[in-house]
């Protein structure tokens, strides 16, 4: 899936990429366009993320099957040197872009968050490091069972 995105978003690197790379509070303004994007691809485009390389140095810990989609715990650790930000996309949510987490020198590139997940979906993470983008994803299944009362 990412492959197709790569080609489409390739041209936007120069224009938007630089915005993300400042160490802290790079997202000086809350990125309305990215948060209103209806697809992961459009969200990435708005954030200037392009050409992310698959990376096994991004570790995503999230439930295979979540007990309640209202509160899905997600841990992301980036083992990529020079990581400056971690962005999270819940692909099947109405607005997939869920947030970006920025780390200054000294902060360990790790974040724990809890998100609403509407239906079973890949959770995609994009890491910015050294002017490049890296990505990994993990599938989360959502269940809501229980009595009819």
């Amino acid at each position: 899936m990412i492959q197709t995105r790569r080609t489409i978003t390739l041209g936007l690197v120069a224009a938007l990429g630089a915005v993300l790379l400042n160490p802290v509070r790079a997202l000086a303004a809350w990125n309305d366009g990215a948060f209103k994007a209806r697809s992961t691809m459009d969200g990435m485009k708005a954030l200037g993320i392009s050409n992310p390389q698959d990376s096994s140095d991004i570790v995503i810990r999230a439930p295979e099957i979540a007990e309640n989609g209202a509160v899905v715990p997600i841990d992301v650790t980036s083992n990529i040197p020079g990581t400056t930000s971690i962005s999270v996309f819940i692909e099947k949510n109405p607005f997939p872009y869920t947030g970006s987490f920025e780390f200054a020198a000294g902060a360990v590139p790790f974040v724990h968050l809890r998100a609403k997940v509407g239906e079973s979906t890949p959770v995609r993470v994009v890491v910015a490091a050294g002017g490049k983008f890296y990505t990994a994803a993990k599938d989360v299944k959502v269940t809501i069972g229980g009595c009819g009362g």
Partner: protein
Amino acid sequence: MKLKTLALLAGGATVLASCATGPGGTHREAVRLMQRDFKPVGIATMDRLKQDEVQAACNQYSNNPPPDVAATLQKKQLAGIKWPADGKLLGNWKEGEKIAQRGRGMAWNDKPGKTSRGESNGGSCYNCHQIGPATTSFGTIGTSLYQFGKARGYSEGVQRYAYGKIYNAKAYNLCSQMPRFGHSNSLTEQQMKDLTALLMDPASPVNQ
């Protein structure tokens, strides 16, 4: 340790507390307190706290009534079943599947015969039973109904058993945990026919 002993003593029977009143007295006192402390909400009126003879007997005998008591009461329950006037017991299994999936109805915010969302009452069947093969989130309080008709045959006798059991489970097993859907006016005749079809129509996924 001391507490455990006390808990065991108290749990063993209603011995300690009810020596003055006897077990039946404790039950009566509990019911009196519930009737004092509960308030009606919408269709959930106070008469719901008045036990009928089946509920009372099942409480009295801890859901394990002596055979003669069970036989007498079951006979009365069976006699109260209203069979469809047109003699047809099978409705539409597709509708039956929807009714089996739905679990709402008869509670505080619901309307007579309708849920608060305006749907007809559900049968909550999947809450307790395995039924169609597509639903894996089924409960296990009741027996599996998968292949109900296929296993028992599609005779009119089995159809009658299925319809009757849905209408009044207590006519067949006095202290069954299953609600009496017809007896309590929770489901309509058509809904019970649809559920019977879900179990008994050879075309129903239940019987594939």
